[in-house]
């Protein structure tokens, strides 16, 4: 039986969008056949809107083939013993079921356009891509492994920030991942970050903006504070396109804005250029 509309949580997708075969573009309202949409890398054929991508789809899009996952079985504990409308553990179980992932990031080694590299991809569909212990640990393990093997690292972010349910332990993951980036960087190895929709809070304020080169995906919302928080704080109208990838480019915060269809090529060229010395082709 379908859930009555009054029971559905605020912010949940309306029924029309969750159709098995069809997807409605949230930007232009076009009704899109899912299979076509997937073939077009989840970019709307009418208006070019970039749908949010699942981590595994993103990896399939970027990696040349083989993806050797690191720490696939890391799962979160419950440092605070958190419960609100349900225990934290139950929330996580729900996220696992929905996403088919154990946590909000997948990390591993692969090749992009022939260049061997570390690749970490966050998944916004898992607890809003928030960073708790596991995300912090997996990103750190990836960077440490790439430091050992003298490989570049590409991190694709999609995150609401630090995970509230893990409290200050989540906050400390900013420091942990940063320390790993700092060491990695001191070895002369390149970190490239790709900021996708949305990237905010503790992830943008740590490795997101620590890339040697920072790429923003077309149309992505990127910022430190979420729009709602800013709205509530300043209570005035926000400028047109505020916190969009294009807005950030204009304000000197990112190196380039790249369309999804061109992302792999752009990354490949960049990695080849940056890592010629570190990894002889």
């Amino acid at each position: 039986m379908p859930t009555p509309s009054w029971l559905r949580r605020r912010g949940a997708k309306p029924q029309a969008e969750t159709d098995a075969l069809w997807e409605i573009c949230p930007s232009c309202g076009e009704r899109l056949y899912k299979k076509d949409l997937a073939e077009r890398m989840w970019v709307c054929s009418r208006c070019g809107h970039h749908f949010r991508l699942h981590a595994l789809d993103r990896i399939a899009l970027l990696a040349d083939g083989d993806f050797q996952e690191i720490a696939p079985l890391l799962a979160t504990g419950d440092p605070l013993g958190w419960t609100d409308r349900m225990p934290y553990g139950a929330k996580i179980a729900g996220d696992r079921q929905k996403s088919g992932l154990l946590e909000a990031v997948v990390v591993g080694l692969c090749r992009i356009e022939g260049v061997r590299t570390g690749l970490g991809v966050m998944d916004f569909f898992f607890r809003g891509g928030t960073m708790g212990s596991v995300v912090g640990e997996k990103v750190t393990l990836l960077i440490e492994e790439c430091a050992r093997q003298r490989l570049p690292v590409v991190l694709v972010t999609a995150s609401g920030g630090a995970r509230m349910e893990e409290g200050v332990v989540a906050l400390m993951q900013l420091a942990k991942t940063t320390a790993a980036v700092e060491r990695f960087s001191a070895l002369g190895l390149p970190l490239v970050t790709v900021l996708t929709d949305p990237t905010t809070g503790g992830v943008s304020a740590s490795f997101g903006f620590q890339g040697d080169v920072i790429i923003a995906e077309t149309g992505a919302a990127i910022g430190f504070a979420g729009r709602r928080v800013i709205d509530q704080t300043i209570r005035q109208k926000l400028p047109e396109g505020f916190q969009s990838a294009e807005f950030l480019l204009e304000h000197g915060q990112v190196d380039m804005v790249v369309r999804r269809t061109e992302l792999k090529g752009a990354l490949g060229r960049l990695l080849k250029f940056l890592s010629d010395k570190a990894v002889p082709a």
Partner: protein
Amino acid sequence: MNVIVELEKPLIELETKIAGLKKLNETQRVDFSNEIALLEDKARQLKAEIFGNLTPWQRVHLARHPKRPLALDYISALDGFTELHGDRVFRDDPAIVAGYAYLGDLPIFVIGEQKGRDTKDNLYRNFGMPHPEGYRKAQRIMRLAEKFGRPLVTFIDTPGAYPGIGAEERGQSEAIAASLKVLAGLRTPVVVNITGEGGSGGALAIGVGDHIVMLQHSIYSVASPEAAASILWRDATRAEEAAQRLRLTSDELFEFGIVDEVIKEPLGGAHQDPQRIIAETLAADRRAIERLRNLGVDELVDRRYEKFRRIGAHVELVHDSAAR
């Protein structure tokens, strides 16, 4: 409305009454000693009642108490503090104070997040919420500390980095991310004091250090309770509930191994005896620096790496139970 200020009211009334009687006792022939002793006893009881068993929410308000010592109160207690201004790019951010001073005979650099004492002062200090230029000024001071081989001491007291249009345009994320990175690799001892409110990345941006000191009634959290409630439940009015769940008190942080040392406060909070608290905090910093200075710089930075490297609550599963 600060809930602690409200709670304190009957106590302050009582204390005023005692002071009045004591004055009378000195000037009049009537002896009020018994009454005074009785009232003093009552005041002690009341104090223990009010402050003996504070809820997390009350502790949040104690950390935000208008009379609580602020960063500059600690920094001014150092010898010869000279303030250094500006990020050399945009402007000087009054929400972050920085400079150099002597801790006893030790030359140190200092950075502190500064709230205001009253409304006017708070508008000037932006309620202790730094803009990107504040963090960039802090980075400049961090690099000076490294270059001249001076220890760095920081004082955390902020609800969080400022969420505003200008802050976003000028790269609040980058400013915090860069501060974290500078501190992570800084080749000089870094001692961190959490003296009031430690809210989110805006606090951690000056908090990646070798020794973390926290005042008993300070708080340190992934986000301010208001922000956490707004993020979790889209309802900032549920801040009290968030405060309960976030485990942001000094005893919990010490237990998590995130804080190395807790400075006990007098009953009723640091503002009951600010001079003592300031002296004890600076003495703790001094001890930490003496100890850290004995380490080689490589070892110092390695230990800092390990200190944050081990924080996390994760387990390795035997098999993947998710529907991959």
